[in-house]
């Protein structure tokens, strides 16, 4: 079973501390992959301005890096900073890693005219274009994210070893939110795109467990012909896309996500204050119902963090912390490793109906139950 750890703090911290939490939970994974998402990124070597997008990924050959440079130039992006990882390639299992890139770009001047929505659309399309370019060239270019303040690293190997190989302990990279997943390779071959977390337009999620309803959900998402609803090397990528669909397409509040992936039963909805709306929503989004066992953790562009469970609550999860600093982990020892000096009696284990939300101010954890009223404009 894959292990999950997420930490969010008002003060930026080193991602290495989350990797040590992964180490604490190490009986749960087999070293077939590590995925990291850093949000609210700060660099020791560079004064980063938070509106510039950051591109993260791996160029497997020199030639692919040239193509990347060319593509970005052609689109009008200007390279402002290229983070130089202190890499020890001997520690990395895979032998085709030419360069781990984590680059800050300045958006094209023409984008000034764009609305926020248009600009975000373009960022997404650029990432997809780069990814497709890599795929048409035998997979020599892997692109994980392209978004302000966000970077992602995915690699095959044991989490701590990967962190060491990339010099993450050196403190040059810090972030306010770090998500990490230690992967237990299951039904799909080891592919970097299959490593969690998954990313789309600033939204990132990671999961453990198996999504048995994957194929019908994937088929439905593919049928939307959205340019970034692609990939699906992992059955968990659909969780990210459903969250994206809920927030950006349906424009529903975050708490509605749970009603889409694990709706209440008809009898329960009949008692619910918004039962009529929710029953219709369940029907309309029926193909997006997941069938865990899953624990889904995610973060949003405004640094909100969330965790939800499958409907049968077949996975463990603990939320702990204190104002200003919170951690989610699939094992309690993971939370202990990330925030040891907290009041453990306030730890919370979400159940089947819960969504735990840490808002951007990180003052308190919010526990929202599906049986409560949803903050909907329609409800008025």
């Amino acid at each position, binding site marked *: *079973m894959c292990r999950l750890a997420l930490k969010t703090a008002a003060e930026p911290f080193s991602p290495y501390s989350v990797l040590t939490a992964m180490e604490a939970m190490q009986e749960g994974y087999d070293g077939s992959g590590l995925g990291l998402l850093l949000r609210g990124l700060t660099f020791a070597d560079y004064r980063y301005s938070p509106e510039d997008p950051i591109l993260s990924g791996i160029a497997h050959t020199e030639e692919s890096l040239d193509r990347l440079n060319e593509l970005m130039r052609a689109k009008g992006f200007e390279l402002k900073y290229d983070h130089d990882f202190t890499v020890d390639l001997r520690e990395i299992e895979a032998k085709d890693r030419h360069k781990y890139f984590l680059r800050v770009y300045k958006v094209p001047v023409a984008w000034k005219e764009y609305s926020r929505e248009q600009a975000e659309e373009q960022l997404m399309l650029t990432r997809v274009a780069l990814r497709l370019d890599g795929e048409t060239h035998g997979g020599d270019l892997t692109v994980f994210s392209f978004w302000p303040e966000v970077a992602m690293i995915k690699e095959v190997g044991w989490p701590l070893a990967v962190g060491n190989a990339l010099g993450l302990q050196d403190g040059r990279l810090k972030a306010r939110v770090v998500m990490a997943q230690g992967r*237990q390779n*299951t*039904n799909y071959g080891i592919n970097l795109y299959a490593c969690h977390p998954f990313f789309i337009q600033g939204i990132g999620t990671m999961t*453990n*467990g*198996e999504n*048995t*309803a*994957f*194929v*019908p959900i994937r*088929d*439905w998402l*593919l*049928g*939307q*012909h959205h340019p970034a609803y692609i990939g699906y090397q992992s059955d968990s990528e659909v969780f990210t896309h459903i969250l994206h*669909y809920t927030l950006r*397409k*349906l*424009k*529903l509040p975050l708490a509605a996500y749970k009603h889409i992936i*694990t709706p209440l*039963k*008809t009898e329960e909805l009949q008692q619910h204050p918004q039962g009529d*709306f929710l029953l*219709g*929503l369940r*029907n*309309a*989004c*029926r*193909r997006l*119902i*997941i*069938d*865990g*066992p899953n624990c889904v953790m995610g973060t949003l562009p405004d640094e909100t963090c969330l965790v939800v469970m499958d*409907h*049968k609550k*077949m996975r463990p999860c603990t939320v702990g912390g204190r104002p200003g600093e919170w951690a989610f982990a699939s094992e309690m020892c993971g939370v202990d490793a990330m925030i040891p000096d907290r009041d453990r009696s306030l730890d919370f284990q979400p159940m089947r109906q819960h969504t735990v939300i840490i808002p951007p101010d990180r003052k308190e954890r919010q526990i929202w139950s599906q049986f409560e009223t949803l903050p909907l*404009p*329609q409800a008025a």
Partner: protein
Amino acid sequence: MVPIRNIAVAPSSLTYHDLPWVVQHREDRCTLCGRCTSVCPKEAIYLTYRRQRLPKMVLQASERGSAYRTFYGIRQRTDLAHRCIGCGMCSMVCPNEAIGPHPNANDERARFLDTEKGEPIKRGGRRNSRESLLDRIIFNRISMLTDPALDAGRHEFSVNTLLGRVLPPEEYIRRKAAGEWIPPVREIFPFIIGSMSFGALSPNMWLGLLQGVAYCNEVLGIPVVMATGEGGCPPWVLRSKFLKYIILQIASGYFGWDEIIRALPEMQCDPAAIEIKYGQGAKPGDGGLLMWFKVSKIIARLRGVPEGVDLPSPPVHQTLYSIEESVMKMIQTMSMAWNFKVPVYPKISGSTSAKAVLNNLVRNPYAGALLIDGIDGGTGAAYNISMDATGHPIASNLRECYLDLAAQGKQNEIPLFAAGGVGKNGNVTRNGMALVMLGASGVHMGKYMMQAAAGCLGSERNRCNVCNIGVCPKGITSQNPKLYRRLDPDAVAQRVAETFMAINTEVKKIMAPLGRSQSLPIGMSDAIAIDDQAAADRLKIRYVC
């Protein structure tokens, strides 16, 4: 050779060895009670006495050269009108297990001659083929790696499906906010009792089914619905609260609809749905047919026709110019009759043109579903040739339609229902769930219900299948009170309940190892496989061996 002038041997003369079923009678056991001959629906057997000569050597002139023995026995008629249909009623009533039909293992010559008076074979029942592709599909995506297995008996399962048009999520939210019309949707059990008309079925059978369906809904919590077929619905049902479990069918003869329209203002609830029949899998291109001997007083009243006349429905809806137009007009009219609160959907025969109809429905905002009835469907009466050889198998037809919808991202909007051969060899849940995973939102089953709930004797080996002539030996498809009083509606209702309880458990037993419990696994094609490469390619599922 001695001429046998006094024995008539015509081109169509048959012996019992030429017939599909040969009756074997054991004289040593027979008590000559005569029950078999009186129960036989075809009068295929009769009690007779014979004389047997016992030759012996004569030594004295005072003695006769031969002695005779007289014996009694049951004999089989050999003319086609009285051919044995293998129903087995004779064995069922025989107190001494002395009689029974056996399938003819030899060549069945009768088949060549069954065109008397220029009439090709007509019958009821099903396609006479035991083959079933659905029986070869297995469920093999077993969650072994990361899942604690689900327990069919302990966990909660949501197995219901939706009948009715479902809006795309964005549109749903927009309409809800604007207070606009949301199409009606019913949450039902995915196994539906397919359309069998009140004229085709006996009153006792119909009552039994309805009682059973009501019990499933109200006591067992399994929301089963049943479809009426053409010919309306008994007036008291139309005005009862049971109407909500009923899908009313309108077909090209519009039989029974004046009664339904009359009942409209007095209805206590809406029907589950309206089914517009354009075609039927068992006899594509034919309308319904109720033969005169089934048009009893009550049927005549219900259908608004005189008693004892043949009631053929035209092959097409007479008001239509093209199917597209008709589908549109009729769906709109029917929706309007119930104030847009009842899902309305067409039923078509499986066909290579099913996709065209489907795409038409996608553009019609009032269309509530599409039911495709494959070649293995059943019927009360049809030409043998239609039943056996015309139509399209359901699996590939349904799959094509589903994939077409999926390519447009509309697989949740128009639910597809499949019928035709579900449970033909008794594997009803297996067949139904295979269709669900190929993309069906649910399945309709007619013959299976008759077999499971009322003990219909019909089979794919052409056993019985005389539902068309009103002599149903079990009283299922007869309007003759002498026959249908054999069928106890309460016993049928109990069997309906037992059948659905069993299907419900089997559905869970299939879903649990696949790791599914939250929703019916519609289109979960990664879960199924077949041992035939060509079929796997065609259905886009996994091949296993």
